């Protein structure tokens, strides 16, 4: 029997609300099946199970908020003895938004069914009823001041912190909470990761011309955007600099199992998320385009999957038409690099000795200096430039 637990789906995620079950007890599932929808600060996320088996028991009902690591359901995988838990990290320290599933298994997940402690080693004194109420309200006890016996957090303390009785039932996200989460992640990034920055202005005129010809032959729904070229080109360029693609944790860099690029999506109403598009290097341009389109749509409408949040090995932030000339990104831990693309616009360039108006884009690389250096970065940017100069090879 396998205990399917609430995954950590983003930076500093501590709890999620189960808003929908997509399976019932008795249903057979295969690995990768989406079995539930969880609402987090980032919005509603579809959660996949990575087991083959039969749903044995739904533990958490719809509407209940549970901490990361709490058992959501039990899956009968046909193995009698206690099975290892689902490979979902229950971290003792706040985690970044994206995390590959293989690098997980903090000891807490393997043994204790209890919710993950808030901060490593800290116990929070709270009365039983206060604890229960805080869970119901989705409040973090560690943020509350205790006025009960021995300074324990009491029921009154919890009620005072959250006067509203019930958590919001609507889908969507709490923009304020998202900004808080982003702020936390970004702060951590800047605090812990020694960033270095390189930039390269790339002439994409040929690429855009190719794009125009390609799109002319496509129905509108299948036309490509320049972003797709940038996405694919980045993926291919990483072959020259594999130590920009992966994660850094516990003083160890682990190369990514694939090239899963977190594509930063700005949400209406504010907020930014970077769900992963998987195996970009192995997708054709149309596939990459579709994936990007799909990600953006689901990021805005809800329906992102847990794996999309945990599996990015590098990210791209592309400001698009409205953006600035260049963008120096902040790396999303535990990734080790972020590629930035500024606005594609006509600018003066030197071609064969003469100054001409060319479509230029400034590509930047922010990378973790513990893992790579300017040499690697330069190789990457050079490769990127080369690939974009041969768009038909994309």
């Amino acid at each position, binding site marked *: 029997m396998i205990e399917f637990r609430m995954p950590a789906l983003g930076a500093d995620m501590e709890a999620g609300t189960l808003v929908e079950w997509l399976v019932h007890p008795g249903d057979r599932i295969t690995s990768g099946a989406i079995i539930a929808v969880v609402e987090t600060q980032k919005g509603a996320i579809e959660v996949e199970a990575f087991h083959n088996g039969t749903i044995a028991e739904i533990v958490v009902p719809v509407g209940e908020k549970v901490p990361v690591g709490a058992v959501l359901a039990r899956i009968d995988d046909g193995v009698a003895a206690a099975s290892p838990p689902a490979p979902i990290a229950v971290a003792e320290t706040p985690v970044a938004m994206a995390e590959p599933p293989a690098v997980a298994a903090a000891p807490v997940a393997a043994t204790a069914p209890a919710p993950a402690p808030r901060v490593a080693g800290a116990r929070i004194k709270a009365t039983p009823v206060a604890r229960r109420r805080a869970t119901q309200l989705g409040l973090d006890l560690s943020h509350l001041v205790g006025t009960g*016996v*021995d300074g324990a957090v009491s*029921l009154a303390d919890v009620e005072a912190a959250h006067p509203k009785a019930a958590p919001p039932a609507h889908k969507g996200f709490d923009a304020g909470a998202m900004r808080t989460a982003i702020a936390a992640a970004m702060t951590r990034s800047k605090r812990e990761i020694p960033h270095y920055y390189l930039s390269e202005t790339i002439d994409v005129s040929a690429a855009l011309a190719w794009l125009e010809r390609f799109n002319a032959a496509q129905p509108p729904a299948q036309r490509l955007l320049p972003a797709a070229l940038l996405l694919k080109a980045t993926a291919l360029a990483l072959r020259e600099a594999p130590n920009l693609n992966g994660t850094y944790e516990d003083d160890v860099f682990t190369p990514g199992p694939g090239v899963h690029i977190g594509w930063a999506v700005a949400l209406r109403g504010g907020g930014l998320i970077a769900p992963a598009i998987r195996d970009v290097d192995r997708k054709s341009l149309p596939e990459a385009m579709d994936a990007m389109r799909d990600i953006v749509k689901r990021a805005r409408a809800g329906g992102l999957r847990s794996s999309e949040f945990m599996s990015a090995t590098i990210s791209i932030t592309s400001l698009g038409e409205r953006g600035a000339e260049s963008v120096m990104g902040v790396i999303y831990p535990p990734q080790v690099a972020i590629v930035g693309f500024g606005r594609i616009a006509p600018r003066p360039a030197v071609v064969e000795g003469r100054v001409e108006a060319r479509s230029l884009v400034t590509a930047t690389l922010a990378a973790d200096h513990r893992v790579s250096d300017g040499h690697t970065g330069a190789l990457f940017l050079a490769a990127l430039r080369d690939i974009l100069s041969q768009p038909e090879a994309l």
Partner: protein
Amino acid sequence: MTAPSNTPLTYREACKQALRQALQQDPRVILMGEDIGRYGGCYAVTKGLLEEFGEQRVRDTPLSESGFVGAGIGAAMTGLRPIVEIMTANFSLLALDQIMNNAAAIPYMSGGQFAVPLVIRMATGGGRRVGAQHSHSLEGWYAHIPGLRILTPATNEDARFMLIAALQDPNPVLIFEHVMLYNREEAIDPRVTAVDISRARIRREGRDVSLICYGGGLFKTLEAASLLAREGIDAEVLDLRVLRPLDTQAILASVGKTRRCVIVDESWRSGSIAAEIGMRIAEDAFFELDAPLRRVCGREAPMPYAAHLEDACLPQPEGIAAAARAIVRPS
């Protein structure tokens, strides 16, 4: 039989009226005990009953606790309804073998062939400066024994009517009368003609903390509640009335409401009935609690004679109030 309406009577008089009613209503009822006849009872509870009912029905016994309690058991097994008085709970230890090994056990050991419908009354508790061998509170100890029903009437109404209900019970019933209550005057509601012997009763409703008590502790606890009320703390006072079987439902309901409790128990703290009550709350109301469980019990010493020392060994209203305050308004 009953006092005229609204005339206050003492707890002692209430006990006597109960005994008189019992003797009058059922010819199978006899009283046995030391000095209950000619002397009129150590606490004057049985005064006049010998003269009224004669020495077959009201029997002065020799100083033979084991002997006459055992006789009460044998008589109860064979058709009488004896009410045995043990002068104080302290002396009951001499009869503990008969109570535990016979009264409590014979129905069970005989596979249900014999019942022991015996009532034993005992004076209990401290406060009279009578020293270590005369001041025990053992009702909690007796409440440990399966087969017994343990009653602790605190109000005069309960003193008046619990005995009558006990005589209807086919099982051995021990009634503990606190020595400090005998003189207490209170009128009994004339509409009340009977009480149950299974439920606890809320004597004062409140919202902030449950004060759980019984017997002699009730009035000190009510006084503590008054002190707390002046500070804006609204205490609920629950009179257990029956220590075995405990009215767990009432306990859990009160604590479920207030989320805090202080248990008041005159007996020594370790292994007291307060410990049992606390454990039941921890078992079944853990998640309702908003403060640690607290108890105010007797100091763990054989009762000293000097008045100030004895007072220090017994729960007092200010101590009860302080315990409640500490968990309602921790500083």
